[in-house]
């Protein structure tokens, strides 16, 4: 199979797309330059997975029209299940394909200056603030073809800004619905916690169609400025026909903390990259990922914590369950730059194989350019432990149920972290459905 590498969209198209939305010139220029770069730059090279033949660039519709919601009751059941419909003070954003369909932020948070809005509204109302963070210190436009293409074509997403000294103690939730099977989603998410602030953001990607062939390209940039804390939860649940590139990047300033809990449950081929850069002294990054691979899908998960500041701590935990003929590569990289003394990099990767035909590969890597640090890693690929199975069965639990318990236990590190009950429940249900 050969893949068409010529991009389906021209400079003229991008210009008119941007102008129609009344985007400021900095963004129009950024898009145009990015498109030019996307023509030249190569694809990313996720270690140990060949993606040359994956379709990241060919799709029919860059934008589709979807209706906004007049009531959340109109949502499909699968989406409703993610949301606490009874909660009056919802902090919720729902996006149907490219349309900002529902947004709500409590008066209390608005009064405190918290911004939680779709990315286009943010660009028009807070242009300077968005410009300060959009693909600058987080993900760069020219990292490779997919970041450039993303910058040129991004067509959805949210912007979250928490001002200095504001603590948001309820989660902000975003639900991105992939509804139209022909829609290509280029979603851009920015979460900024300014100095001494705190925020929890949880996002869901969900397909409500059995997509034949769609492209999703997601970038999330997360900033925990000085002494700020961000908790970022995600459940990705896109359909089998979707080829996904998802890049979640965190930047922690002095004493900043970023914690990730990622449930990566896509059914299609997926490249997922999650890098946390611990820039400031005393910053902290904790990234927990769980994955279930099934069917014929191929996935590559690269998780990295890069230490620049002194006294930084980075933790990576990845647990994957592989069944059927699914293939997954788990790359974990703890990197300590020169000068990041007294830092600690720890990682653990474990893969549970449920079938002979499945493939799982855990590659823990430590790159250390500083003497005065501590680091460690553990990795394993194995099957359900027969001794554990025997133990549970000896208490009367049937084999299938015992296996189910062990698998859920294995994925619990992320499931237990999800701060929204409905999302946690949905993640458990997705896992249930996928491992059955």
């Amino acid at each position, binding site marked *: 199979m050969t893949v068409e590498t010529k991009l389906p969209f021209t400079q003229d198209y991008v210009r008119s797309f941007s102008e129609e939305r009344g985007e400021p010139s900095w963004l129009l220029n950024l898009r145009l330059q990015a498109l030019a770069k996307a023509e030249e730059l190569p694809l990313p090279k996720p270690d140990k997975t060949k993606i040359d033949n994956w379709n990241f660039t060919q799709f029919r519709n860059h934008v589709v029209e979807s209706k906004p919601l007049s009531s959340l009751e109109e949502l499909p059941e699968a989406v409703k299940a993610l949301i606490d419909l009874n909660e009056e003070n919802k902090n919720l954003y729902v996006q149907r394909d490219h349309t900002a369909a529902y947004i709500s932020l409590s008066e209390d948070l608005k009064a405190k200056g918290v911004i939680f809005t779709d990315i286009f509204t943010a660009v028009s109302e807070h242009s300077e603030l968005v410009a300060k963070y959009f693909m600058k210190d987080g993900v760069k436009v020219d990292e490779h073809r997919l970041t450039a293409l993303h910058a040129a074509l991004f067509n959805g997403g949210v912007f979250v800004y928490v001002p200095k000294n504001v603590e948001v103690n309820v989660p902000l939730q975003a639900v991105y619905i992939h509804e139209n099977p022909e829609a290509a989603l280029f979603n851009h998410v920015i979460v900024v916690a300014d100095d001494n602030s705190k925020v929890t953001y949880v996002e869901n990607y969900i397909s409500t169609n059995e997509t034949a062939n769609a492209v999703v390209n997601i970038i999330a940039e997360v900033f925990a400025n000085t002494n700020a804390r961000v908790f970022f939860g995600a459940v990705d649940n896109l359909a089998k026909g979707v080829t996904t590139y998802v890049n979640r990047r965190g930047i922690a300033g002095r004493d900043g903390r970023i914690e990730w809990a990622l449930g990566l449950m896509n059914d299609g081929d997926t490249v997922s990259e999650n890098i946390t850069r611990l820039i400031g002294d005393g910053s902290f990054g904790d990234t927990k990922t769980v994955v279930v691979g099934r069917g014929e899908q191929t996935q590559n998960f690269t998780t990295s914590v890069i230490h620049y500041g002194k006294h930084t701590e980075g933790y990576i935990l990845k647990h994957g369950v592989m069944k059927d003929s699914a293939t997954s590569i788990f790359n974990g990289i703890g990197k300590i730059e020169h000068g990041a003394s007294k830092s600690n990099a720890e990682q653990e990767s474990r893969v549970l194989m449920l079938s002979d035909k499945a493939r799982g590969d855990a590659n823990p890597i430590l790159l250390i350019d500083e003497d005065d640090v501590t680091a460690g890693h553990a990795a394993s690929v194995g099957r359900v432990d027969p001794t554990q199975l*025997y133990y549970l069965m*000896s*208490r*009367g*639990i049937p084999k299938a*149920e*015992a296996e189910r318990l062990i698998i*859920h*236990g294995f994925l*619990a590190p992320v499931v237990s972290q999800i701060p929204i009950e409905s999302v946690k429940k949905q993640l458990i249900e997705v896992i249930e459905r996928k491992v059955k």
Partner: protein
Amino acid sequence: MAVLTIKDLHVSVEGKEILKGVNLEVKGGEIHAIMGPNGTGKSTLSSAIMGHPKYEVTQGSITLDGQDVLEMEVDERARAGLFLAMQYPSEISGITNADFLRAAINARLGEGNEISLMKFIRKLDEKMAFLEMNPDMAHRYLNEGFSGGEKKRNEILQLMMLEPKIAILDEIDSGLDIDALKIVSKGVNEMRGSDFGCLIITHYQRLLNYITPDYVHVMMQGRIVKSGGPELAQRLEAEGYDWIKKELGIEDEAVEQEA
């Protein structure tokens, strides 16, 4: 009243015969103790009764109330009324003790007859208090990071929650200090009654000061070589195993090494 009957049981592990014809009957209301030096096949017997996949029964029979235990899967044996407190309980991450116990109880009760959450919590609280366990233990992952003593206590908690007909306790006393030993014994004594039979495996007589057995058996070289009452345990404590070896002409207490 339940009866566990073991006849002429031969068991191999990885092709090596460990049990060489064990005969034993445990009835509801009875407490049996099996004693013997290390490596003589006591745990092998308990594993074979419970159905550990590594232990192959090559000859003989095990029945529970006339039903063929060897035909049953491990979970079926448990639901038929057998319980094994293991010498080395597994640690299972991500499953809380409470969730595990509820799953086990509900597996016994069957679909449609599940225990109500209220009733379960009440029973769990009660049994944990009885065993002087920290209530937090219910919400910790199953045996994960438990000390040796905590694991043993947790086995007895499961015993009390699941209420089997016949329980086998494999070295439930090893690694316990006197206080913990007393608590564990208290748990077992609480279960005593005509509906409950118990097979206690130990190599210390100490435990039997707290749980008085009705019968004591000595296992050597994969066989029960001597049976008696509680006085047999006392003699073993006082004199060791040498006199039995002499009596029976046994050279080495452990299973012979293969050439």
